[in-house]
C-alpha cells in the first residue's frame, strides 16, 4: 500500500511514491506534455513502475488554474451584482501604487462591462433585507447570457459575507435555469467583507472553473481506467488538499498550489527535525520565495493578490493562501548596469531559455549561476548530475562586461553579482521575519528546490538563524510536500463586534456554525478517509478605529473573553511595538482551520558507513571569507552522524550545498544536512 503525489511543472512532471510498509520513497521525472497533461502523468507513473491497485491516496498539483488566468484563457464570464454596483469590478480600489507614473494603467477586469448585470436587491451590513431580490430581472439576464454564449457566471451581492440569503436564491435560480453554465456565488468562496475583493475572487473562480472541471474529469477517468481506485485530491494554496470534487467547484483555491506544497514540505522537514520555527527559502530560476512557519503552523492569509507587484495593484483573491514573499532574484537573474553605471541583479532573468551563458544555449548575459560557476561553487562537469555541461569560458566572457564596468577582474565581478543577489534575498528574508516581529535566532532556515542550497549557508549566517537545513530530494521538494499533505479547509467569516458588548455565547455560536460546516464538509466527501479532524481557531481583533488586526489563537472548547483580550494586547505589542490599554477592542474575523489527520510519511534512516565520500577538491571563492581550497563531498555517500568543518561543498544530482569556512556540517540519521 502506498501514496502517490504528482506535481506538474512547466518543464517536468514529478512523481513521488511512498510505500507505507517499507518506507521506501521513489521519485521520477518525465517531461510535461502541455497539449494533454494527463499523458505526462501517465508517463511518470509508467517510469516509476507504480501498481495502481496499491495506491491508497493520490495528490495532484499543477498550474492549470494559474496558467488559465495568466494566459487569459478562461471562460467567457458574466457577473450579476447588486443594483448600482456593476462597475465596482472595474473601479477596483482606485489606487495608483506606481505613483510617479503619470501614464498609469489599471489591471483590466475579467468581465467586460456588457456582461456585468445588476439586479434589484439589497441587504444592510447586519444582513437585514432592505430590498428583496427581483427574480423577474434575473429572467432577462438569463436570456442574455444564453444569447451571448456565456460559459460561467459569478454572483456577488453587497453584504453577502454577513448573510448570503440573496446569493443562495440567485445561484439556485441560475443553476436550475442554466444547467450547463458554471455558477459561482461569492459566499461559497469567501465570507469576508470588502465587495471588490470578494467580487474579483468570485469572478476568477468562475473564469477558471470550466477549464479545471474538464481537466480533472479527464484525469480522473483516465486514472480510473488505469485501475486507480483511491481518493484523489488536489493540492490547494493553503498547504492542505481537497478532493477533486470540491476542487472542481472551488478551483481558485488551487491558484498557488505549487508554492504551498513547498511550504508544506518545509513544515514537514521542521517536524522531522523537531524544529517548530522554520524560515523556508526556495530559489528558482527567476525568483526566490520565502515564508515563515511558526510553532509548526504554516502562515496562511487571505490577502493574496495575483500579478501584484510594487507598481501593480494586481487582482485580490480572498482565499487562504500560504503567506509567501517573492522577489525577482533567482539563479537565472541577469546582472546589468543602469544608465549611470549602478550594478543591478534581476528582475530580468535568462530563464530556462536561453538560460545562463554557461548553459551554451545562446544566452550571453551574465547571471547568478554564471557567477557561481566562476567562483568555483558549481562543477562544470556535474551540473544536474552531469546532464548539462557548463561552459566556464562562456560564463567568464559574459561576466567581462561587469568586470569592465566595475574596473576589476572577472572573479571579483562574479563575487559582486553573488553579493548583490544575496543582499536582495536577505532583505526579503528580513521582511518576513524581523519586520514581522520574529527573532531569526529562534528559527532554522530550510531550503527547498535545487537552487537554494548554494546560497543558504551565506544567507542563514547573515540572517542569524540557528541552523540551515538542506533536506533530501531537493529536486522533488514540492511533490514531496504534496505527499505529506492533509485534507484541509479554512473557514473565515467577518463578524464585526465590540469586545465590551459581546457575550461568550456570541463567539460560541459563530464557531459552532463554522464547526458544523467543517464536519459536514468532511463527512459528505467520500474521498476523505479520516478518523480524526483537528480544529484550530483564531480570531482577528483590532483596536476600534484600526484597520489592521492581529490574529489570536483560541481554544474553542474553553473560550474566555478576558484571556482573548489579554492575548490580543500581548500580540499587538509584539507585532506593532505598542498597546492601548484603554481603547475599545473589536472582533473582526473568525477563522477555523479543519484538518483531517492522515499519517505523514517518514523517511528511512540512511547508512552510517563512511565510504568514498570525497569526490575531489577545488578552489572556491567564499565571498567575504576569501578563496579556499575546498573538499567536495558526495551527498549520496555521506553517512548518518557525519560531522565536518567548512569550507566544504556537498554535491548531488540536483543541488550543490556550500558551507563557509568556520561553519559546521552535521548529517542526521535521515540524511538531512545541518549547517551551523
Amino acid at each position, binding site marked *: 500500500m502506498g501514496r502517490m503525489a504528482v506535481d506538474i511543472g512547466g518543464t517536468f512532471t514529478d512523481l513521488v511514491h511512498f510505500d507505507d510498509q517499507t518506507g521506501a520513497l521513489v521519485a521520477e521525472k518525465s517531461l510535461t506534455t502541455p497539449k494533454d497533461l494527463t499523458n505526462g502523468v501517465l508517463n511518470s507513473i509508467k517510469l516509476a513502475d507504480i501498481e495502481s491497485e496499491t495506491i491508497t491516496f493520490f495528490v495532484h498539483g499543477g498550474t492549470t488554474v494559474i496558467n488559465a488566468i495568466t494566459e487569459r484563457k478562461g471562460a467567457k464570464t458574466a457577473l450579476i451584482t447588486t443594483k448600482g454596483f456593476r462597475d465596482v469590478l472595474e473601479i477596483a480600489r482606485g489606487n495608483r501604487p506606481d505613483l510617479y507614473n503619470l501614464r498609469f494603467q489599471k489591471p483590466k477586469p475579467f468581465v467586460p462591462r456588457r456582461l456585468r448585470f445588476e439586479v434589484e436587491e439589497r441587504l444592510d*451590513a447586519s444582513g437585514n433585507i432592505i430590498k428583496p431580490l427581483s427574480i423577474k430581472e434575473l429572467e432577462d439576464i438569463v436570456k442574455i447570457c444564453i444569447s451571448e454564449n456565456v460559459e460561467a457566471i459569478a454572483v456577488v451581492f453587497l453584504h453577502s459575507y454577513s448573510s448570503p440569503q440573496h446569493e443562495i436564491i440567485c445561484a439556485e435560480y441560475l443553476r436550475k435555469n442554466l444547467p450547463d453554465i458554471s455558477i459561482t456565488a461569492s459566499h461559497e468562496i469567501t465570507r469576508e467583507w470588502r465587495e471588490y475583493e470578494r467580487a474579483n475572487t468570485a469572478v476568477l473562480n468562475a473564469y477558471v472553473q470550466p477549464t479545471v472541471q474538464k481537466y480533472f474529469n479527464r484525469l480522473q477517468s483516465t486514472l480510473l481506467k488505469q485501475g486507480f481506485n483511491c481518493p484523489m485530491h488536489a493540492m490547494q494554496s493553503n498547504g492542505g488538499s481537497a478532493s477533486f470534487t470540491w476542487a472542481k467547484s472551488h478551483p481558485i483555491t488551487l491558484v498557488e498550489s505549487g508554492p504551498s506544497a513547498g511550504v508544506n514540505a518545509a513544515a514537514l522537514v521542521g517536524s522531522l527535525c523537531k524544529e517548530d520555527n522554520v524560515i523556508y527559502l526556495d530559489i528558482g530560476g527567476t525568483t526566490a520565495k520565502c515564508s515563515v512557519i511558526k510553532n509548526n503552523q504554516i502562515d496562511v492569509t487571505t490577502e493574496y493578490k495575483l500579478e501584484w507587484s510594487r507598481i501593480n495593484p494586481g487582482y485580490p483573491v480572498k482565499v487562504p493562501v500560504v503567506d509567501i514573499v517573492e522577489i525577482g532574484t533567482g539563479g537565472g537573474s541577469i546582472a546589468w548596469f543602469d544608465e549611470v553605471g549602478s550594478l543591478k541583479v534581476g528582475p530580468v532573468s535568462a530563464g530556462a531559455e536561453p538560460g545562463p551563458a554557461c548553459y551554451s544555449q545562446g544566452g550571453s548575459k551574465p547571471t547568478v549561476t554564471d557567477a557561481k560557476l566562476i567562483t568555483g561553487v558549481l562543477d562544470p562537469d556535474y551540473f544536474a548530475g552531469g546532464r548539462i555541461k557548463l561552459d566556464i569560458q562562456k560564463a567568464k566572457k559574459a561576466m567581462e562586461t561587469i568586470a569592465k564596468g*566595475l574596473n576589476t577582474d572577472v572573479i571579483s565581478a562574479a563575487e559582486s553579482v553573488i553579493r548583490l543577489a544575496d543582499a536582495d534575498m536577505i532583505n526579503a528574508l528580513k521582511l518576513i521575519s524581523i519586520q514581522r516581529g520574529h527573532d531569526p535566532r529562534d528559527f532554522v532556515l530550510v531550503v527547498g528546490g535545487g537552487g537554494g542550497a548554494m546560497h543558504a549557508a551565506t544567507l542563514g549566517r547573515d540572517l542569524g538563524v540557528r541552523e540551515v537545513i538542506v533536506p533530501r530530494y531537493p529536486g522533488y521538494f514540492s511533490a514531496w510536500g504534496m505527499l505529506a499533505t492533509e485534507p484541509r479547509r479554512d473557514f473565515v467569516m467577518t463578524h464585526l463586534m465590540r469586545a465590551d458588548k459581546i457575550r461568550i455565547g456570541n463567539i460560541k455560536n459563530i464557531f459552532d456554525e463554522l464547526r458544523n460546516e467543517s464536519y459536514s464538509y468532511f463527512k459528505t466527501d467520500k474521498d476523505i478517509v479520516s478518523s480524526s479532524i483537528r480544529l484550530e481557531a483564531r480570531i482577528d481583533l483590532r483596536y476600534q478605529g484600526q484597520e489592521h488586526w492581529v490574529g489570536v489563537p483560541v481554544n474553542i472548547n474553553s473560550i474566555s473573553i478576558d484571556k482573548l483580550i489579554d492575548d490580543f494586547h500581548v500580540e499587538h505589542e509584539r507585532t506593532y511595538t505598542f498597546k492601548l490599554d484603554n481603547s475599545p477592542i473589536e472582533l473582526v474575523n473568525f477563522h477555523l482551520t479543519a484538518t483531517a489527520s492522515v499519517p505523514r510519511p517518514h523517511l528511512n534512516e540512511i547508512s552510517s558507513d563512511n565510504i568514498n565520500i570525497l569526490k575531489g577538491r577545488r578552489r572556491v571563492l567564499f565571498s567575504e571569507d576569501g578563496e579556499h581550497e575546498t573538499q567536495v563531498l558526495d551527498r549520496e555517500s555521506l553517512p548518518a552522524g557525519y560531522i565536518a568543518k567548512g569550507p566544504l561543498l556537498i554535491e548531488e544530482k540536483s543541488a550543490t550545498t556550500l558551507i563557509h569556512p568556520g561553519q559546521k556540517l552535521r548529517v542526521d540519521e535521515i540524511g538531512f544536512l545541518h549547517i551551523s
Partner: protein
Amino acid sequence: MSENSYRSTVPDLVTHEIIRGKLLAAADEMGIVIARCSMSPVIYEVLDFACGVCDPRGQLIVQTNGITLFTGTFGLQVKSILRRFADDIKPGDVFMTNDPFDGGTHTCDIALIKPVFINDNLEAFAIAVAHWSEVGGAVAGSISPSATEIYQEGIRFPGLRVCRDDIVQQDILELIRENTRLPTMCIGDFNAELAAVRIAETRLREIFDKYGSEVVRDTYSYILDSSELLSLQAIKQLPNGIYYANDYVDGDGITNEQIPVCAEVRISDDKMTFDFTGSSPQRDGPINCAYGALSSAVKTVFKALVDPQGPSNEGWFRPLTIICPEGTIFTATKPAPTGWYYEGSAQASELVWRALAELAPDKLSAGSYMSLCGAYFFGEDPSTKEMFVHIEPAIGGWGAQSNCDGTGALIATTDGDTYNYSIELFEAKFPLRINKYALNTEGGVGAGRWRGGFGVIREFEVLINGAHTYCSFGRNIETPWGLMGGKNGSLNYMEIVSGDSVERISRISHKDLNSGDLVRIVTGGGGGFGKPYKRPVKEVQEDFLDGYINKETAEKDFGVSLDENGNVDSNLTATLRLGDH
C-alpha cells in the same frame, strides 16, 4: 597563492548598492509600521503618509511614499529643525512639526523627526509624516473649506521637541488631547509615527555598525550623485526652450470666481527652471499651498519625466530651480489658511504637466480630473452616541495617453497608493448608505483618437438626522484639457438632494443633512488625445456596446452613426467624418 589571496572585499560600488538596498528596506519597514499601527482611516486606508531618511544636512537619502504630496517636503522640514535647534540636537530627541510655512503642508500632516547618533556623531534623521484625522480648529476634521486664517485650522506644532532622552513629553500629549476632537486617534497616530522613526534608528544603527560611518556617508553621496546623473541625462534629451501653461483654480472656498495661475518651464541643456511668477496672490480661502507643497508638486511631475520607478531622493532634483515670489497662491505666507493645500499643489503639478505634455507624450497623459474632491461627513451616530467623522478623497478620470485610452476611476496625482473606501466597511461603520458606485458615463470623457478615462458617481443616502457635510472640489468650471487635438473632459461636483431640492456645489464649509437626503459625489472624465474622428469606428462601437457612450455621443463626438443594437451605418459615418475633428 596563499589561502586567502583573493581580495575579500568587493568594489565600493557594490557595497554602496547593498547599503542602498538596506536603507530602502528600512524606509519600507517604517511605512509598514505606520500603516499597520495607525488608527486613522486616512492613514491606513488612504496611505496619507510618507517615511524617509535624510543625511545630517537634511538632504533626502531614501523615502517611501504612500502619496506624492510629500515628495519635496522632508528635506525642508529637517532643515527647519536644524535651523531652529542648531547645536541643541541630542540623542534621544524627537521633534514634531506641522508648520506649512516651514516646509510642511497643512496642519493635519504631522511630521516626527528623530536625529540618529552613532558614537555621538549625528549621522542621519529619520522622518515620518502622516495625516491625522483631527487636529482641532473650526471644524471637525480641521480643514474648513472657508477658513480665512491658519488659526482656524487646528493646533500647530512649530518644531517642538516632543521626546527628550527617548521619553515622550507627556505635557505635549496632554496639550494634544485637550485641543483635538478625537484624542485617542491622535495619540494612536502619534505612537505609530514614533514607532516608525524608532525602528528606523534601530535599522540605521545596524547598518552603521556593519559598514562604518565613512562607508555609509559615501553611500549617501553615491545615491545622490547617481540619481542626479540620471536626471541630467533625461533633461538633455528634452529640447531647449521656454514652455508655458496657464489655467484657473475654480474658486477658493470663499468665492467661486476663477483664479488665474501660470507656469513657465525653461529648459537649457541640463537645467530646468520652473517659474510660477504671475500666478494669483495668496487667497483668503484655504486652497493656498506653501513652498514645501509647491516643491512636491514640481518634483512629482519631474520624477514622472525622468524615472517614475526609481526611489526618490534629493539627487534627482538637484538640476531643478523653482521660482515663485512670496505670497502667491503657491507660496502662501503666515497666516494664510492652507487646509486644502493639495488643491493648490495639484494645480501647480498640472501646470508643469501641461506645459511639458506635448514634449513628452510618452511620459505624460492628457489632463485629468485633478482635484482630490475631498468630502467630509460627520455627526453623532444615534445608535452609539459617538461622534463620527468620515473623510474621503474621490477617484476620477485621467487623461488619454499617446497609445491608449485614459484610465478611469483612479486617484488624483497628489495621492498614490490610496484606496477608496470599501462600501461594506463604510456601511458597517457609519450611519449612511451607499446607493450607487458607478462610472460617470453621464458626464462623459474627452473625445479623441484615444478617449479620456471615466470619473465616478458615488451616491450616499443619509440615515440619521443631524449629520453634516463639507467639501472642496476643484475643476468645477474649467474642464480637464485634451492633448494633440483631443477634446476636454468633464467636471467635478457634489450634488445634494433634499426633498424636492437639488443643489450642485463644489466648495462649501457646512451643510446640514437629514435622514433621506442624498449626497452625490460626481467626478469628471479625463481629456482626450488626438482627433476624435481618428478613433477607429470599431472602438466607438465597442464603447457603445459596453455602455460607456450612447448613440448621441458616438455620433456627435466621434462621427459614428449607430442603431440601437450597435450596428454601424457606414455611409452616414463616412459623411459625418468628412470634417477635421
